[in-house]
């Protein structure tokens, strides 16, 4: 049982160590650093002047488009790895299948570019 889970445990221990390290460093820092809070120190930094309005504001729709574009290809990336590993055994049929798949996805990318989502100048 332990052998079956060993890879998972290794990964979990290594990842957990990363989080623990930050906690430990902050803890050690707590012993050394001063703490003199003041209202001025707690304000958001805007180059020295008092902040105008809130820090959370409306954002640009273009970033949202990139997330959509990303989704097109990220699913493909998950499919393409098992295919790549077994390509030699699967042979010509799998090759043709994947080329068709890639061409369909490329058509999506070409459509997005022709729609002008990558153009930021108006």
């Amino acid at each position, binding site marked *: 049982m*332990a052998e079956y889970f*060993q890879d998972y*445990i*290794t*990964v979990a*221990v*290594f*990842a*957990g*160590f*990363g*989080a623990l*390290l*930050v*906690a430990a*460093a*902050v803890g050690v*820092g*707590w012993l050394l*650093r*001063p*703490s003199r809070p003041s*209202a001025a*120190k*707690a*304000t*958001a*930094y*805007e180059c020295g002047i008092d*902040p105008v309005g*809130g*820090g*959370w*504001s409306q954002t640009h729709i273009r*970033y949202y488009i*990139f*997330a959509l*574009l*990303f989704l097109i*290809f*990220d699913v493909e*990336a998950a499919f*393409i*790895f098992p295919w*790549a*590993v*077994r*390509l*030699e055994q699967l042979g*010509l049929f799998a*090759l043709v299948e*994947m*080329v068709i798949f*890639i061409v369909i996805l*490329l058509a999506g*990318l070409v459509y*997005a*570019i022709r729609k002008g989502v*990558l*153009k930021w100048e108006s």
Partner: protein
Amino acid sequence: MSLLDNVWVVLAVKLGLAVVILFALALVVMFAELKVSAHMQHRIGPYFAGGRWGWAQVFAEALKFLQKEDLIPRDADAPVFRLAPMVSLLGTFAVIVIIPLSPVLVAGDLDVGIFYALAAGSVSTIALLMAGWSSGNKYSLIGGLRAGAQLIAYELPLVLAVVGVVIQAGTMSMVGITEAQAQPLFHIGSVGISLPYALQGQIIGFVIFMIAALAELVRIPFDMPIAESELVMGYLTEYSGIRFTMFLLGEYAGMLAMSAIASVLFLGGYHFWGLNADWFGPFVLIGKSLILVFVMIWFRWTWPRLREDQLQSLAWRWLVPLALANIAVTATLKVVL
């Protein structure tokens, strides 16, 4: 039954070794960045701390950061703000599990090795978005959004560039990929000649991988998210003291991890012609990684920063189609030959 039969002892030894090696190298890289940058600009760089060459500069800076007050802005989302550096380092430490220093010196040789590394590495996207959003600062928010868009855009070329190597090796295990590159490709007389994948037709994949890795690490020329002339320090604006240091450490550890992965995938990993991988493997891999790290620092003083839309254009118009073409050509050659 010896002590090394115990799973937990082995795991602790591996974690200890990995952490010591990673930290020692991260300090070397931090110092190299100071010194190499200085000499590329005809400066001397640090020369005071510790005496000769100012070798103690990085230790002095770590101590200085430890003593700085831990400021959390009033408007910040405090729990998320505190968690962000943890998530950032968590991703980096999860990646180093699979990096093989020699045929046996590997924390965990997963079957899905490189696929897992790419997945674990992309956790840092979330850390940067968390940092940008939770700070409650306009610069941080814009920086965080830029970082999110940039990291997902360059995730694709990074992943697709790796597929070519996976096709050639027929495995995703990092040790498997390294060993596949050590197989003799052709013979001169009775001597078998092996070539790393960068010289076996994956040179385009290697270049795409390095460009995408630079963008993933938010380093010049892809450092728009922390562009100091526009956004102060982007998503790091509100961070100070030890939390800021942890982000910095994450960046240098990330540079090392990315360079090590690139060395394994494209440059033959721990193998070098004529050297025994069991004994010289760690030095060979670390040497290759440090050369790539040097190239990354070199790039910083070579190219100006791109504009945000130029960055996206480069990824979607050039790198993604090029990486897909690379896959198609590699796959065709693999099936035909």
